[in-house]
């Protein structure tokens, strides 16, 4: 695995997969909460930058979760 942002995208999608089976709304809530609680600011900044650049590779729920998180921040 190369370093970020690929790695961060991979990690975010991994989180997304856990919440997948809980349906869209709960998944988005769960993912954004998880990233907010456990990721340090520089990682969040990087993934937001990646989102701005098109967010390629991010799964749909994860993308929504990140959008939501950015609004809160």
């Amino acid at each position, binding site marked *: *695995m190369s370093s970020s942002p690929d790695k961060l995208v991979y*990690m975010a999608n*991994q989180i997304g*997969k856990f919440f997948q*089976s809980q349906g869209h709304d709960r998944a988005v809530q769960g993912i954004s909460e998880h990233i907010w609680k456990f990721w340090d600011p*520089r990682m969040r900044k990087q993934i937001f930058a990646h989102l701005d650049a098109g967010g390629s590779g991010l799964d749909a729920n994860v993308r929504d979760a990140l959008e939501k998180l950015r609004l809160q921040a």
Partner: protein
Amino acid sequence: MSLIHEIDFGTPKSKSETMVTLTIDGNQITVPEGTSIMRAAMEAGTQIPKLCATDMVDAFGSCRLCLVEIEGRAGTPASCTTPVMNGLVVHTQSERLKQLRKGVMELYISDHPLDCLTCAANGDCELQDMAGAIGLRDVRYGYEGENHVFAKSHGCDNDAWMPKDESNPYFTYDPSKCIVCSRCVRACEEVQGTFALTISGRGFDSRVSPGMNESFLGSECVSCGACVQACPTATLTEKSVIEIGQPEHSVVTTCAYCGVGCAFKAEMRGEEVVRMVPYKDGKANRGHSCVKGRFAWGYTTHKERILKPMIRERIEDPWQEVSWDEAFNFAAAKFKGIQQKYGRDAVGGITSSRCTNEETYLVQKLIRGGFGNNNVDTCARVCHSPTGYGLSQTFGTSAGTQDFDSVEDTDVVMIIGANPASAHPVFASRLKKRLRQGARLIVVDPRRTEMVESPHVKALHLPLMPGTNVAVITALAHVIVTEGLVNESFVRERCDWSEFQDWATFVADPKNSPEATAIVTGVDPKLLREAARTYATGGNGAIYYGLGVTEHSQGSTTVIAIANLAMATGNIGRPGVGVNPLRGQNNVQGSCDMGSFPHELPGYRHISGDAVREQFEAMWNVKLNKEPGLRIPNMFDAAIEGTFMGLYAQGEDILQSDPNTKHVVAALSAMECVIVHDLFLNETANYAHVFLPGSTFLEKDGTFTNAERRIQRVRKVMTPLNGLADWEVTIRLGKAMGFEMNYSHPSEIMDEIAALTPTFAGVSYARLDELGSVQWPCNEKAPEGTPVMHIGGFVRGKGKFIITEYIATDERTGPRYPLLLTTGRILSQYNVGAQTRRTDNVVWHSEDRLEIHPHDAEQRGVRDGDWVRLASRAGETTLRAEITDRVAPGVVYTTFHHPDTQANVITTDFSDWATNCPEYKVTAVQISPSNGPSDWQKAYDEQARQSRRIAPVVEAAE
């Protein structure tokens, strides 16, 4: 100070609640039914002479020294085998008894060497004591007859004589001193559960025999020391006692190796340790131990231990020995320089699960308060971080639910991804004892572990493919739900019912059935169904799990799945049940409790919570950063990116213990200042600029918290050889950076922890001295601590069921890497082996071996003992093969105790989705014959050799 003498009651305590009253020597005494007369007498303060009885094992009744008279009964029954009864009137001393005892004693002494003055047990010999107690004054029989004492008799070889067996590195067996009381045999069976010893022969020919007349080292013996403790004579004696002599004082302390947390008496002569003896009042170990804690403490004075601080500008330079102040100033200047150049967040630290709670607390305090960021993490990241996450989500606390005593009330034990016989030996002994009493055992593990194969234990083994835990546990849940085995009243009362229903619908889906998942898991559906039924309906069901659960990309999911299973069957909230993580290192639990994670303050409270953070700010007198910091793997990534440049690592060898060694090497090499605080020049130190010598558990005061949440004292028995205890080093490093922390003793640090952490509110050194130990939560509601959690309801309120979908790891086998590698531990070595490799424990394990199934070996032309090349997508290494069917075809297994093996060169940086705990337990690999060490191993060795140079000290001219 004096020696702590523990009373030997002669026979074990009875658990009965029915009380019985009798009269012994004119005194009335009331004891539980099932107590022996011997024990009842001792409880009343009368010691009946005895040789073959001791309270760690059941009575045997062979020596006939403990005879008593009972009014109204003929003869002289043995008091160790005669139970108390209401109204008995017992006499322990009479003319007849005196004569009988003298006769017995005379026979023993006539076949025993009379070299008491030079005997190693002089002063600690029960035979001597008893001869004195019964007033033996002369022995009518000479040594002319048959005896076991002399090598020659009447000029000929004496066939009955046997030479000493000194094969075990830590104790000797001198058969000429044996009185064949069989205490050792019973200790090995009943306490340890290994069955290594027997009494061979009969009558005069009876001998204690390891295995089939083997040497101790060559036998099944695991060197736990239980037999040595039980032996009343010098027959089995610690070599350290033979060399040094009898101890003169002792101090109770806690083992610094594994998460069982055995209590020991450090028996001392001045500042020299004579021996470590397990302490009967230790509530985790109840007087038992394993080879590591009992014997493997020689590393503390090993010649390779570094005792002076050292610094260097570049890692290519040799080390320079300097004074403590120079080292602190050098380190502080570097760290401040880095923060000026790269920003406040460019430094951080790692706390250790081997250090005390107080030391861990100080390191995180230094980082949060002194460095001004939250870049603190701990080695628990790489082992049990998913436990914290999973259990706090479902139950509301990041810890196991039971105490170890709970196993005595368990009917069905399910062990998942753990090998307690190797990694938590004393718990394994206690568990095996329960299994011999009839409890049932289910083992979920890719490998046929020692637990599955141990004597007198029948296990239901589910050998799953590595990486399929979630599928197997969800399939167990499927059976429980679809066969109607759910404990509905428990779930309705204690758990969120609608979440349960969602979960039940999910697990009941046919795709989660044992039959449907067998293709990926490799587990026979019939066995799996049987296991599910046994766990759900067999009485008290308890789950114990280890790193085979957590170290996966779905580690946290598996912990949640286990918690779901326990809730669905109502196996939570009373003795005998529960969910119990078996923690690897001695203080993994404590280091997590003490706020070692970047997002949490002590007591598992998120750093963003204003109220909690303000409390800490007020106490520490500093403003804290409210954003979570970097976790270890994130630190490495940030280092390679150039934003994380300084690391303080206390007691943790990240280079050897973390996955994907090449990645770690790259990260460490990128940093401008690495401070290693440890006993030895470990692997990480090869990339360090500052080395601060550490102190051992014998040299400092503090506390450890074991896997049962039990807080126990570590007590200083000698002056630190390096000059400073670890907590003092952290304080002085902080001071050099301008951050004052003032404590004159670790007890003051604990007081601060108690003041800031609700679950520790009642903990203090005074309390620990008074109670011996406490299990947190310990506060106003539970002043004596909490042995079993979630009684009557969950800590979080309602138990939370969470859906656990199986997602295959991205680490897949394929044509190039067709085998799955999984890793584990063995008994005699500990973690990266820095300590145990520097003791005689190496006689049991001098190198890591690769276990491979005969079928896979044959296909590759590999024979037993051959060097093989082990390659994965991350790297390759070489080690020697051991061909065994303990592993299934397609699976290979190795330990990771030796740095030469570099097993982590192979492991990848895939990790748990929730906590980034690395996926050690699954790596796709290929194996091929090889001639010896790989190029990487050679280059690494060369770098290590260069890096460990210490510059000779040049005497400055006056």
